[in-house]
């Protein structure tokens, strides 16, 4: 699957979520390792749909900044009913998008091991917080394989893979790499080292 395909699929998921929530906007941000200008890990907004979506697309939010970053770090979903009053909110980022929401629901997107891959953010939902949390978790679970395969594609440079793997289609390669991960995890005790 190409990057454009991934973006289209994730954007479609944002649209579905926005309609289901009756929300102003929905976005998906993916955890990206630090490097280059950003020495710390950051959240990269790769898909968005609704109000302010053009402004948030492509934004890279460093660790420690914003509610989504908090959710990525802690792995805990968060419902905030008065965003303006919340110290975690990155108001400057929201203002640059031209859309400052009143409420925000942010849910971690995790892989099947519980590893946080990214964050689904729902701005100004139309339903109650209790309903929204369950719905948000369901949407996060739905998009998780898409996000996982996009990050797997990004992390796996075909030139560095054995020729048999490099020859596979990205989706096939992701499946084989997943299987290999499972096999390696089963036969090799995880190394745990420490340095004071």
């Amino acid at each position, binding site marked *: 699957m190409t990057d454009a395909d991934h973006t289209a699929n994730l954007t479609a998921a944002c649209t579905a979520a926005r309609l289901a929530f009756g929300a102003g906007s929905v976005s998906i941000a993916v955890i990206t390792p630090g490097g280059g200008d950003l020495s710390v890990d950051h959240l990269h907004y790769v898909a968005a749909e609704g109000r302010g979506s053009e402004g948030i697309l492509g934004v890279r939010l460093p660790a420690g900044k914003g509610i989504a970053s*908090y959710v990525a770090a802690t792995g805990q979903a968060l419902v905030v009913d008065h965003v303006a*009053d919340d110290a975690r909110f990155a108001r400057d980022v929201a203002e640059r998008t031209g859309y400052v929401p009143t409420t925000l629901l942010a849910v971690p997107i995790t892989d099947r*091991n*519980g*590893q946080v891959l990214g964050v689904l953010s729902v701005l100004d939902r139309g339903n109650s917080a209790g309903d929204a949390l369950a719905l948000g978790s369901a949407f996060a679970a739905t998009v998780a394989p898409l996000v996982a395969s996009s990050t797997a594609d990004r992390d796996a440079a075909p030139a560095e893979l054995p020729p048999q793997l490099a020859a596979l289609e990205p989706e096939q390669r992701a499946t084989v790499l997943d299987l290999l991960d499972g096999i390696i995890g089963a036969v090799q005790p995880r190394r745990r080292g420490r*340095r004071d």
Partner: protein
Amino acid sequence: MTDFLPAWSEPFYSEPPDLGAPAGLGLAIDREWAYGDGSGRGVRVAIVDSGIDADHPDVGGVQQAVDVLRDPEGEEAIFVDGPHDDLYGHGTACAGIIRALAPEVELISVRVLGSNLKGSAFNFSYGLEWCLDHRVDVVNLSLSTGNDDYADVFWELLDRATFEGVMLVSALNNEPKRSIPSEFAGVFSVACAPVADREHFQFNRSAPAEWGALGMDVDVAWGDGQTINASGNSFAAPVIAGHIARIVGAHAGITPWQVRTVLAELAAISRWHSPGAGARLAP
């Protein structure tokens, strides 16, 4: 006012509460005996979290701090001693709650949630191991992982803590999904309960939420000297950690099993707030 309820808090909020047999055995344990002077003097309490803002007025200083990092080139944990900040405010919130309940504890910040957003289960496990290696009495874990690969690592650490008499207090995830190590029997697992204030808490016979404490719509310390209103099991766990610090301060050498008995007796004499106030059952 928040209208959602964190996962595993339901038994405390149902009407009537669904907590199994009554707490306590009717032992002659009261608050005065359990807590002594209630200061927690000399008790070493670690907060494994996002760091602590030592200058926040609710925190009242941090006596020791270590940053747990992962070597990006390998599989090693790196421990950096010395002051650090709190990128997220979450650890500062926990510290403020514990300090208010047991003002003379030694607070130790073990930062495992920092600038690295991936691989937090790795940092988390090493942060907990650091606590066991450094004579900590009570550890607050207002975080959990869903990473099954780490289940055996945490089981080992929990067994070691229990055998060495270290009290691990762990918040359950706010969502009903895998929550390691809070769903394991070796920790004092905590969810939210509609109790009157932080002086009171509840005991639940039904796993995995063993203890219920105030965590909904609470004012907590945050970064940059701020205070925010927040909800979640994360803010209930430090309440139990604070009570345990008091008990350990009054009864040096007490074991985790003995502390459970004392807590259950105290829960039996705790007061309920209006059930359902401030939250409703999730659908």
